[in-house]
């Protein structure tokens, strides 16, 4: 068992928010998905207060060992999520973490208070990789913005609040420290790195959203360093992710200081990748007792 902010998990492997739709996967694979559920905790796609269509296609571009996406957070909005998705996600055999994003403090407050009051929800993740419409600053890129948001949200729920850190910040460790001081229960990283691609024929931006976020093995080395420096900076549990594709990769993130790991893009290559990575990790931990969390300093 793994303790994540007071929630007991059967193992340390989560999915990255927005990289697994368990409801759609159940339509494709049936109840075998539940019998062999690949993650030890399920993280929802980021939800916003109002419904969003997302960005115009094309939304994907393949890079060497990676992917750039400009999905644009399509979702049904808070009311649609609660009515249609939450009852289905409650049927999953693992604890549920709901990821939320607000474009100002009022939106965030409403999301956290409402989602936090749902019994089906064990944890919440705060996706701060968006501009605060009041200040124009990317909330998660700025320690003061992050601290102000977390301070306002902290009294609204008893549920653990995990701050998802963006790698597109001058110093993610400083943002993590600010989140800790403001009362966050954990941090997760990395979100995608900003990137872009040009259409090989027209030389115009390929992605409908012009720029996107890079994920996959291409970002793993950057993610490992950020997980390491953030883990040194805070006492909070850290969920490490970014290009994890094997038990070896997951072990490296745990060794660098993470309590849990999350699998994102690798699930696109194999829907059951989370289970394989968990099994490889268990086999490794029997062999290499030394990779106890945070062994690297």
């Amino acid at each position: 068992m793994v303790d994540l902010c007071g929630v007991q998990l059967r193992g340390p492997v989560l999915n990255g928010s927005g990289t697994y739709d368990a409801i759609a996967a159940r339509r494709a694979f049936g109840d075998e998905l539940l019998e062999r559920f690949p993650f030890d905790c399920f993280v929802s796609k980021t939800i916003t207060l109002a419904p969003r269509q997302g960005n115009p296609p094309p939304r994907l571009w393949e890079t060497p060992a990676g992917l750039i996406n400009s999905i644009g957070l399509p979702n049904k909005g808070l009311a649609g999520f609660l009515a249609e998705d939450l009852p289905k996600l409650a049927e999953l055999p693992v604890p549920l973490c709901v990821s939320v994003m607000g474009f100002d403090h009022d939106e965030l407050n409403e999301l956290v208070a409402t989602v936090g009051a749902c019994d089906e929800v064990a944890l919440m993740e705060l996706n701060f990789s968006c501009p605060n419409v009041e200040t124009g600053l990317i909330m998660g890129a700025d320690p003061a913005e992050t601290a102000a948001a977390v301070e306002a949200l902290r009294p609204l729920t008893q549920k653990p609040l995990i701050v998802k850190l963006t790698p597109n910040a001058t110093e993610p460790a400083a943002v993590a420290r600010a989140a800790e001081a403001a009362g966050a229960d954990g941090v997760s990283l990395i979100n995608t790195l900003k990137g872009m691609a040009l259409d090989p024929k027209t030389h115009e931006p390929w992605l409908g959203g012009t720029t996107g976020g890079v994920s996959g093995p291409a970002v793993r080395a950057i993610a490992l360093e950020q997980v390491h420096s953030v883990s040194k900076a805070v006492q909070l549990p850290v969920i490490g992710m970014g290009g994890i594709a094997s038990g070896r990769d997951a072990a490296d993130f745990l060794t660098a200081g993470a309590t849990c790991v999350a699998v994102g893009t690798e699930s696109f290559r194999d829907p059951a990748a989370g289970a394989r990575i968990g099994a490889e990790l268990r086999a490794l931990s029997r062999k290499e007792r030394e990779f106890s969390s945070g062994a690297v300093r």
Partner: protein
Amino acid sequence: MTLAPFGRRLAPLVENRRIGAYQLLIVDDPDGPRDPQPGQFYMLATEERWGAGEGERPYLPRAFSFARAREGRLWFLLEDIGPGTHRLAQVGEGENLWITGPLGIGFDEPAGRPLLVGGGIGAAPLLCLQDQLGPETKVLLGFRSADHAEAANLFAGEPQIATDDGSVGKHALVTELLREELDLRPPTSGLRPTVYSCGPPPMLEAVRALASERGVAAQLALESGMACGFGACFGCVVPTKDGYVRLCVDGPVLDAADLVPGGVGH
């Protein structure tokens, strides 16, 4: 719709053979379902050396309609157009593919007289559809040249053929054959056709417009860039009258009447 076994599985290559301009891959899939529905697709990658091609790609698996499912074997017809299809076209004896599927929603049972209309590599899902509907099912196929048109030999009966260069069949676009066929069956002629079509975006757009003009039902198998194939990434959306839908879970076959003019792809 047939469910996929959860996760990817290894499928040994049985045969990889050239059919004119295309490549026919046959793999063994003993653990997969025997009854994938025409129009459903599989995500494919090779077990070894997936990556390290042009531009250090491919990295993600690639989507392919199955062209035929027979005795636990799956047929795929593919066109080499980039690093993923290039690597797949090169797989040799003794190699395995990673496969996930069948995925998505295929063609509906025909309400009227089925009329199959394919363009280029879009012939692939129509082959298993003809297998299911029977050898007398009418098939219209358009190809760039005689070399590409060799794929028509896989079909039963005598598919009608059009080529862009006139090297075989009629020197025309396949939508011209469709127009002629629909002219023969005016709305008053009793049994109305249902069009089943797959092909490049401009062709599907022409089929959509023609079907709408003549008031005939049409089911179109569309394409879009896919990363996962099972609804996880939200990358494969196409615009419909109800907004964006994920082609991998709500398609790839969509009712032409649900599409917006010009929205068939890019």
